Structures are given as C-alpha cells and as structure tokens.
C-alpha cells in the first residue's frame, strides 16, 4: 500500500484533482426537476392511468390567478380581470381556462333557453352589480369557482398544455399580469407555480446551504486540526467527493430534485471524518518524527486503514439502504451519497497520504490549542459512574422513555402535498390557502368514464357518483357532465315537472339536450367533461384538503362504486399519484430500514464474530428509529419525501458509534480490566471521540436549517434528534446493557490476525483522539 501510494503519488493526486474538476464542470449543466410525479416510477399504475386520462382531457395542472379586494365586484377590478383574462387567452401554452368571462349562464326563462356569458357587460352601477352577484350565487359553475362566496376574491384558472415550456408560459402570464396593474391584490398559485418556486428555491438553497455547510466544516476542521495546511487536506477530499457525486447527476441524465440538496450536506457532515483521522494521526506522529517520509506513510496507513475502511463500509451500507426505495430521487440520493462517501474513503486512503508524502518528513508544528476539557472529563466520569452504579435503572428508564416517545408513532402522518414544502408565509402558501378555502382547491382527482356516455344508465351513474363525491370530506368542487345535463334539464322543464333537474330517461333525450345547447352555446364548453365522440366522460374533483387521508377515502369510494358501474372507470390525477407516492414512502421506509438494519447486523456479526453481538449492536439503531418516528408523531413533523430518507442516513452514520464503543470495550476487557473498569476507561477515551464525532455530524447537517423548504429544515432538526439518540444508544444504553448482561461475545478473545490489527488500530484512534484533549473527531 505504502509503495503504491509513493510510486504513484503524482498520478493519484492528478487523478483525484482531475476527477473532481471534471465532474465539477458538469454540475452547471444539471437541470432541476420540480415535478413530484416524476418521483414515482412511470410504470406505477397511477401514472399510467393519469396519462390515459390526460391523453383524452389534457393535463389538469392548473395555474390559478387570484384577485382579492374588499369587494371584487367593482368595474375597475372586473376590467382588470377581463384584460388579464384576454391576455392569458392569447398565450399559446394555455390549453384552457375558466374565468368570470368564460363562464356561461344556462337559463330557462319564459319558454326560452339562454346560454349567455355570465358577464356580458361589466356592471357600472349598484343594481347591475347586485344582479351579477345574484347570478353568480345561483350558478354552480361560477360560485366558488370564479368568484368566492363572499365576493372578496375572483380567480382565473388556466390549464397548461404542452405546446410550450411551462416556464415560458408562466413568464408570459407574469408579463400579462404586470402590464395590467390594478387595485386588487394578485396572488398566483397552482402546481405549475409550485414547481417554479421549487426550481428557484432549490437553486437558492444550493447557493446558501452548501457554502454554510462548508463554513461549518472549516470551523470543525480548525477546531480539530488547528493549522490551515492540515485543514486543507480533508477539506479538499470533501470538496472533490462532493463535486464527483453531484457531477454524476447530469452524467447519468438525472435531474436535480429537492432531495439532491441533501447529498452535499451528507458528504460535508460525514465524508470529512476519514480525512480527519489521517491528518490528526499525522499531526500526532509528526511532532516528534525523525524518520523518513516512506516510514511515516507506512506507519500512517498501517495504523488507520482498517478502522477507516470498516467505518466507511458501515456508513455506505446504511446509505445504500435507500436503493430499496421506490421513490426515484431517494434511490438517486442513495447512489450519489454512497458514491461520494466511497470516493471520500478512497481519497482519504490514497490522496491524503500522497499529499503528506510530498510535503516531506520534516517535523510538524502542531498548532492545536489545548482546550480545557475538565468539564468534559468530569461529565464523562459522571456518566460512566452512573452507568456502572445503576445499569439496570438506566435500561429501565431507557425502555420506558423509548416506549413513551414511540407511542407518538400513532400520530405519525405522511404528507406528500408539495404546498407544504414552503413556509407558512410564503406567497405560494398564501395563494394555496385561498384556493383551497375559497375556490375548491387546485389539486385534483380525475375519474374517466369510458362507455356510451349518452346512455341514461351511464349518465345517471355518473350523477350518483358525482353526488357522493361532492359529499366527501375534503372535496372542494366536483365537476361532471351530469351536472351540465341537469342544468340543461332545468332550462327545459319547469320546476314543478318531474324531469326538472334530473337526468333524462332516454338516450335520445340526452343527445337532444346537447344539441339544444349547441344551438346557443358551444359543445367545446364541455370539452373538459366529455369528449366529442361522447365515448368518454370526466369527473374532476378539486380538493380543498389535499391530504393523503382525504385522497385515500375518495379513491376507496370510487373503487367501491366502480364494481357495479355500467361503464369502465379509470382513476388518476395528480392527487392519486401523490397517494401512490405516500404508499411508496411507507414501503420505501420499511424496505430501506430493513435493508440497512440487516446489512448492519451482518457487518456487526462479522466484526464481533457473534450473532448476539450483531443483535446487541443494532439495539441503539432500533431505539433511535422508534424515537425518531415517535418524535415526528408527537411534534407533527410528517414523513415526506425528504424526511423519509432520514432513517437510512441515520443508520449509516449512527452505527459507527456502537461499533467503536463495543470494540473499545472489548479490547479493555481483554487487557484485564473488569466490566466496570472497562466502561470507565472506554468512556474516557472512545466515549469522548464518539461525542465529538456526533457533534461534528450534527453541526454539518445543521446547515439544512437555512433551507427555504420546510421539509428540508425539518430534516436538519430531526438529524439532531436521530444522531443524538444514536449517541445516547451507543454511550449510555449499550454500556449499561454490557454491564448488566455481560454477554459472552464481548469478552471473546479476538484471535484473528486482522482483528488484532483492527484492535490495535482502534486503540490508536482512541489515543489519537484522546491526545486532542477533546478536540478531535473520529468515526
């Protein structure tokens, strides 16, 4: 190894730098994908069904322009809305729109049928304004659709087609709005705007979070390594490995997502540890070094390679748990972060020794400042004393606390609503609140009915389903062709006739109603609700509460109704994809947890040559998982696309603490100490470095608290909880468990040669970190 590093030192350095620079050059070409539906595989049923519906009725993603004023029915406000509506109608990227000026009034008066615009002329006096309000109040296609019930808001809803790039269409809408200023307050909402904000905020976040994380890392390096030259080496490793993993995004043809933001942070928090090991060890050896550079490298690599490798492998194994996720960006994060950690591991083992060799063997001037750690030492003594005195009580309290917090899991909820990515005061949240509370919501479920739509049995079934859906909790507005037929029947029959507001009994009667409408209206008025061949109809459900529970209830109802429905039903829409996405999160969470726990269990069983050892080592992980989910339930932090990644990362990072403690404890036992003595000593040495390591990881992840996305911020907070619980598991629960139950595996003589070496190496790390007087980090 030493010979290899020395012989190819320049090649190693060049390759590392070139790889880093090459991949970094690719990063600017990475594009952002804000479309959450792409998070689920295109083979997923909900995506296939939604595509089928969108092929017939177009994309149902709605842009909603909101106009708010104390009273929106003023000539000035209406003129502004009309101008903006007219401007939007000219945008080629808009496939359809609903506005106060597109809505029709279907009326039957004195033997006449009228299908005229809701607003023929903008009212200028109080009488005509009142007439308009009355007209809106009785028109189901206008009330709470284009005007809110309290007439404080109006809306233009436009569906975006695929003629133009969405960003171009949104810019054109903005331009139309800006060129028509008025008194009303304008807010923009709907999924296309949410996507645009995500794109903007992902880029903004990357610009803020990554530098903050690097700054935090520099502070940690300064604290642990002291001199700038030593800091440069692990810093370079993190920067290079981050550049490589992020450069893989465009190389693989992937796109940046909100989750991609986590990759550089994971690397900053985790990947610097291996470099710190080596540089710290080099500083320690180098102060009084008088041998050759070759001997220095031999000693350095010989003493540290194995523990670094084990540490790296367990971290990679945990992160690779994400590969079992069905959420596509989660799998991508798994690959990117695992690649980054692998690169950091390889570079730490090759690149840093090569740099050290080039620097030469002259004695180092260690600039580390001795930190007063009396308080820390006293804390560690107190902690070990407590564990030794009352291991049983500690275990009982731990079990009790874990059970109490775990009970919070009952309240754990899943949230796939993209609106909630944004903080409460974000303009998109304000717009969403108004859309959901006053306009029936912008997120939709679509039901496509395939059959003879003019058949009265089918039309009646559509009407029955529509009525049931309207009554469902969380249904904001439901639109269907049966409502149009009923409105038309109202214009034909008098209210005292049985057929009034009913679906006609014959196919011909339904067909003739449509023909009647065609005479004064336009069949294209219903093109969102029925195709021109009358072979497919569409029930569009707008959700005022786009929550998974609401969506699932709707889905169940539709599935139940589909059993005896006289035509085929296809369920799709954005909300249904989100429901599948939520299911993916749960399945992904379970599978990635299982994978990571199993892998870690196998690794621990191999390391400790005991299944019981493997099982014991997974205790802190299990405790941490329960505490994490329990805490999320208690605090109301939902499991979403970002927080779903947490447990795998937590396992990858947190398992190191347990391995280190158990290994150190084992070596102290075998050196002849009793269980109590070994606990006190392990706590003083490895306990210290585990705490410092945990702190540095938490500090690295704390950069996420500066994110513009709520769920990424929550991720930052939850890392502290989860790493904190892993820490407590490793230095409190595991020591208490080992003292209380004195399992046989922990007293085993590890006679394997490699193990002896690992033991020696771990001791060296302990010595190294202890030598820093509490200012080093190890993993």
């Amino acid at each position: 190894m030493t010979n290899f590093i020395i012989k190819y030192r320049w090649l190693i350095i060049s390759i590392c730098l070139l790889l880093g620079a090459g991949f970094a050059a690719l990063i600017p070409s990475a594009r952002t994908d804000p479309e959450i539906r792409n998070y689920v595989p295109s083979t997923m049923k909900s995506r296939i069904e939604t595509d089928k519906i969108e092929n017939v009725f177009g994309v149902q993603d709605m842009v909603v322009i909101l106009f708010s004023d104390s009273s929106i029915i003023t000539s000035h406000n209406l003129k502004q809305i009309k101008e903006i509506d007219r401007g939007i109608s000219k945008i080629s990227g808009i496939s359809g729109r609903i506005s106060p000026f597109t809505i029709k009034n279907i009326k039957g008066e004195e033997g006449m049928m009228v299908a005229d615009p809701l607003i023929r002329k903008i009212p200028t006096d109080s009488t005509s304004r009142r007439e308009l309000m009355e007209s809106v109040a009785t028109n189901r296609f206008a009330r709470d659709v284009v005007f809110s019930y309290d007439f404080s808001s109006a809306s233009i809803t436009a569906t975006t087609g695929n003629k133009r790039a969405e960003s171009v269409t949104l810019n054109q809408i903005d331009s139309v709005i800006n060129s028509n200023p008025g008194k009303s307050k304008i807010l923009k909402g709907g999924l296309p705007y949410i996507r645009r904000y995500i794109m903007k905020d992902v880029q903004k976040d990357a610009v803020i979070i990554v530098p903050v994380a690097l700054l935090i890392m520099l502070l940690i390096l300064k604290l642990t390594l002291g001199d700038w030259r030593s800091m440069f080496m692990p810093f370079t490793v993190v920067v290079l490995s981050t550049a490589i993993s992020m450069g893989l995004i465009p190389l693989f043809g992937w796109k940046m997502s909100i989750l991609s933001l986590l990759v550089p942070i994971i690397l900053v928090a985790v990947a610097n540890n291996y470099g710190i090991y080596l540089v710290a060890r080099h500083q320690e050896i180098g102060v009084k070094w008088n041998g050759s550079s070759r001997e220095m490298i031999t000693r350095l690599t010989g003493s540290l390679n194995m523990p670094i490798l084990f540490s790296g492998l367990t971290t990679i194994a945990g992160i690779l748990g994400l590969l079992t996720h069905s959420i596509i960006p989660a799998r991508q994060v798994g690959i990117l972060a695992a690649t980054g950690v692998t690169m950091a591991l390889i570079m730490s083992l090759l690149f840093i020794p090569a740099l050290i060799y080039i620097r030469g063997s002259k004695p180092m001037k260690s600039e580390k400042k001795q930190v007063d750690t009396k308080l820390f030492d006293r804390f560690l003594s107190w902690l070990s004393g407590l564990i030794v005195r009352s291991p049983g009580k500690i275990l009982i309290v731990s079990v009790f606390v874990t059970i109490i917090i775990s009970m919070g899991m009952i309240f754990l909820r899943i949230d796939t609503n993209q609106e909630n990515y944004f903080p409460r005061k974000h303009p998109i949240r304000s717009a969403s609140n108004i859309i959901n509370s006053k306009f029936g919501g912008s997120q939709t479920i679509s039901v496509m009915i395939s059959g003879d739509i003019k058949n009265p049995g089918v039309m009646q079934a559509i009407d029955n389903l529509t009525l049931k859906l309207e009554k469902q909790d969380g249904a904001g507005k439901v639109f269907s062709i049966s409502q149009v037929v009923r409105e038309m029947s109202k214009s034909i029959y008098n209210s005292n006739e049985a057929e009034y507001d009913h679906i006609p009994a014959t196919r011909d009667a339904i067909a003739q109603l449509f023909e009647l409408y065609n005479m004064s209206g336009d069949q294209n008025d219903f093109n969102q609700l029925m195709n021109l061949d009358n072979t497919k109809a569409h029930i569009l459900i707008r959700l005022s509460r786009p929550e998974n529970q609401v969506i699932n209830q709707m889905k169940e109802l539709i599935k139940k109704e589909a059993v005896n429905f006289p035509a085929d039903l296809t369920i799709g829409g954005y909300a249904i994809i989100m429901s599948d996405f939520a299911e993916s999160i749960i399945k992904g969470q379970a599978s990635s947890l299982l994978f990571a726990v199993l892998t870690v269990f196998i690794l621990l069983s191999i390391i400790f040559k005991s299944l019981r050892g493997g099982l014991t080592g997974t205790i802190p992980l299990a405790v941490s998982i329960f505490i994490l989910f329990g805490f999320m339930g208690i605090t109301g932090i939902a499991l979403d696309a970002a927080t779903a990644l947490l447990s795998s990362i937590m396992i990858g990072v947190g398992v190191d603490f347990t391995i280190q403690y158990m290994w150190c404890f084992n070596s102290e036992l075998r050196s002849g100490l009793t269980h109590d003595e070994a606990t006190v000593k392990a706590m003083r040495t490895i306990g210290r470095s585990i705490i410092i390591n945990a702190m540095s990881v938490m500090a690295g992840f704390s950069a996420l608290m500066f994110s513009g996305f709520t769920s990424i911020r929550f991720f930052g907070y939850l890392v502290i909880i989860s790493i904190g619980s892993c820490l407590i598991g490793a230095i409190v629960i595991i020591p208490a468990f080992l003292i209380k139950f004195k399992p046989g595996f922990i007293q085993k003589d590890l006679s394997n040669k490699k193990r002896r070496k690992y033991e020696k190496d771990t001791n060296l790390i302990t010595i190294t970190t202890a030598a820093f007087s509490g200012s080093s980090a190890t993993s």
Partner: protein
Amino acid sequence: MTGSMSSIISLTIIEKGGSVRKRTISMIAKSYPDGAEKRLIRFIEPADVRGTSMLVVDNKSTADEMWIYLPALKKTRRIVSSEKGKSFMSSEFSNADMSSPALSDFNNNHLKNSGENNLWIIESTPVDADKAEEYGYSRKISYISSVNWQVKKIEYYNFDNQLFKIMEVKGIQPSENGKYIIRDMIASNIITGRSSKILLDKITTGINIDDSQFSLQNLER
C-alpha cells in the same frame, strides 16, 4: 339565398386531431320582400337527434328568432342569443355566416392592391364596439371576384388583430333571379386547428313553399 329553396345539407366538423363529427339536415327556406328570411331545419343524422327541428326567422331590423323542437323530450324551446358571432351548430361557422350581412353594421373600404388580378379586397370593420362584440371579431377582409362578384375568401381578425378564422367558398351555383347559392364552403380556425365544412346537396330553387311550413305547429310535426 333568395326566393325559396330546399336542400339537404351536410355539416362536417373536423377536429385538430382528425376526429370527425357529421350532421345531416334537410332545410327549406323562403325569403320575403321586407328582407326577412325563414328557415325550417330538420335533423336527419346522427340518429339520436333525428327529428329535432329548428325554425329560424332572420329579421333584418329586429333580433333573430329561433325555436327548437326536441322530439325525445316533446318540448319546443325558443333559443335566445343576441350574439351573431356565436357558433352555428357548434361549428366554425357563426350564425352571422349563415345569413346575409347587414351593410349598415360595417364600415367598408378597399385595401391596397384591391382591384388587381380581378379581385376586390375589402376590409369591413364593425361600426362600433357593440357591433364588434356582437359579431365576435374586430374586422374581416373579403376577397371578391371583380368578374362575377362572388366571394372567394373571408379572413376574420380577433380583438387582438390576430387572424383567427378563414372562410373559403369552394362551390357556388346559380339560383333564381340571376343570384347564386353557396354550395360548398369551409371555415378553418387558425388558433384551434378545427375546421368545418358545409355542403349543400339536392338543391331545389324556385319551389312553392307555403308560409304555414314555418310555424311552430309544423315544427312539432
């Protein structure tokens, strides 16, 4: 149209995607000395609207009147719409396209090159905003043969002065009194990509049609 006539008319609506909807109707029409015109239309195809009948009275000085009889519902309803620009039977043709234009509703003037190549090019602009709103366009440009005075093509511009519809006359046949009947015409919407074609078949002119044919009683027969 002038005098009296009967015909079988087929209206074909072709969607942008290529799907086709077809309607066949029979029509009798009679014009009166005061300029009014009455039409009785009966649907032949599609089958589910067969028997649906319409009576249209196209008044020159007052609003048009339209009644429809729906046999399956056994109801006659009057349809009211003041919008001449409104679609005719859900096609690209407007109600205004189906009747003779009132010259007083427009300001007409020749455009550059008008008169060259045996073609008059005339721009017609509605006299006021209300008329423009009623017709549903800001202006139209007619291309008329200076040889036989027959309209070849009309281009329609929306309120953003954007060409949105072209109506082309494909076939004309002589009628009584030296006048002509448009037999074949097509209207294409440039923006939606939809087009509609009207074809008159079995045209008989100069027939004697009793006024009682254009009554509500006859509509429901």
